[in-house]
């Protein structure tokens, strides 16, 4: 797998010759990218100003100061929120991978009506927006005596990710050859052993895809923390941003607001730039394989 990729990179692709048609293509795509990216560039340039700098944000990079960042950092309680975000996302994704691969094993392997029914049973969860069930979900948590802690949203993150993850893993599982498992069975491996040592490692591409797609929405979600968490110390990064809700139409606060936006998005940007290839392949594989 890794070897194949390296080979691909070594072969220099032959680029298109510059004809009027290709120039037009370049112009179109550059223009398009500029339009898409321009709000982000303006936000980044404004965030580098001092909070009091009221010049139009359209004048790009006229001042470089960390003052807005310092202000946003302090009012957000950034380190705490970062840790909360990290713990809830990592914990949820870990549980999802374990639960969903386990559930996909019988669903992908057993060929009976029951297994087929269970497959559609899980997938049905994809159709209904879970936020719509928020009233009884809140009551269910209440009745089960589950307190509102920073970990409560994890329950919903895991539950809501199950339909897609089971769909992804069982689809991937159907493409795996059964011969290896048959060999393991003949060698006397137990069911649990077969799952952990044979099947789970083979699922690796799907696991990467699951971690990226589910991790992305969980990291960015503010809805469940907003409903379930009431203490500020337990906020994750996106919920913490809600305190700036009143500032968005106040130009005097923009520099600090934009600094907060950059701080909120920064961890994911760093991860994305470091693992770009896995990101792109993972997102595509999640949709195409499933």
């Amino acid at each position, binding site marked *: 797998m890794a070897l194949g990729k390296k080979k691909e990179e070594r072969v220099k692709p032959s680029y298109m010759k510059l004809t009027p048609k290709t120039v037009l293509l370049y112009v179109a795509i550059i223009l398009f990218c500029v339009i*898409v990216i321009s709000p982000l560039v303006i936000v980044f340039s404004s965030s580098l100003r001092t909070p009091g700098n009221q010049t139009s944000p359209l004048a790009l990079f006229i001042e470089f100061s960390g003052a807005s960042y310092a202000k946003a950092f302090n009012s957000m309680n950034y380190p705490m929120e970062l840790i909360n975000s990290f713990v809830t996302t990592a914990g949820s994704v870990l549980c999802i991978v374990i639960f969903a691969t386990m559930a996909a094993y019988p669903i992908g392997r057993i060929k009976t009506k029951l297994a087929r029914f269970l497959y559609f049973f899980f997938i049905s969860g994809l159709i*209904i927006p879970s936020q719509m069930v928020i009233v*009884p979900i809140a009551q269910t948590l209440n009745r089960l005596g589950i307190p509102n802690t920073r970990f409560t949203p994890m329950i919903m993150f895991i539950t809501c990710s199950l339909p897609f993850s089971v769909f992804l893993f069982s689809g991937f599982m159907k493409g795996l050859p059964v011969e290896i498992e048959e060999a393991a069975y003949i060698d006397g491996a137990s069911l649990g052993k077969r799952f952990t040592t044979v099947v789970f490692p083979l699922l690796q591409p799907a696991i990467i895809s699951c971690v990226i797609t589910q991790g992305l929405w969980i990291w960015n979600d503010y809805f469940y923390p907003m409903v379930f968490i009431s203490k500020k110390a337990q906020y994750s990064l996106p919920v913490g941003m809600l305190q700036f809700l009143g500032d968005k139409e106040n130009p005097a606060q923009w520099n600090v607001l934009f600094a907060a936006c950059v701080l*909120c998005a920064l961890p994911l940007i760093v991860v994305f730039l470091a693992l770009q290839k896995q990101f792109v392949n993972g997102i595509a594989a999640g949709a195409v394989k499933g």
Partner: protein
Amino acid sequence: MAQQTRKKRKGGNSSLIFSNKMYVFLIPALAMFLVFWIYPVLQLFYYSITNFNGINYNFDFVGLKNYQKVLSNGTLTNSLKNTMIYAVFTVTLSNILGMAVAMALNTKIRLKGLFRTCAYFPALFSAIVVGFIWSYVYMPGSGMIANLLSNIGMNGAAFNPLGNFRTALYAIAIVEVWKGFGTTMIIYLAGLQTVDESILEAGQIDGCTEWQLISKIKLPLISSTVTINVILSVIAGLKAFDYSFIMTNGGPGKSTKTLMFQVYETAFTDLKMGRASAFSVMAFAFIIVITVLMLLYLNKREVEL
């Protein structure tokens, strides 16, 4: 044991390796799914005939009053209409944009990686950050677009898409497209890369125009990718909540109140959990009908192509 033999006779699971013992692996996922998903969905029906307010558990049963109220006060039809417009607009635009960019990037173009990153980048941001950024972009007077318009001598002060009940819904739908089309594009790009180069060459030799290559060869070959992308964006579109909540708060008037926003507002702002549940039940029925119809149609089309 008796159960197992009966199943075998029925032609059920008779595999030695993949025995019914495997169903044990389902327990954690199934337990979570049943307790935190299926059970609440069923409870929705129960709450929908009460006047529960979220705090006081001594609520009364009010029969179908909630349903009548939701239907008669027009919130359901209004938010259904808004959600449909929003979904159709975002699905169409993000799929057209995503496919166009994917086709452009699937040529032998330089800096492909950079362009791809640019197009995908907005997808990394949390909806709340995106909502803040676009509140600035749309801001009348000093916002990005208004400022640009003023700079080129047009009337920037009159530009206020979020303040007009005719344009607000489309304005927030564009935000959704901005954030979402990059993901769609990446999926199309992966689909296009599976198209065999030799088929395209054969088409070129037979004298296909560029447009014929796209519509007669590429599109039919990636029809399953189109299906999955349309399904994913319809699911996202029907969940519309974020930008109504962050950018417009449902306004102006009720022009950006979507199904999800209406449920949230009825439940947590008006504290009418019973009515919100009745609302959800009816919205569900609608979403399920739409999705099933769409799946049937897309499946049929895929076979035809």
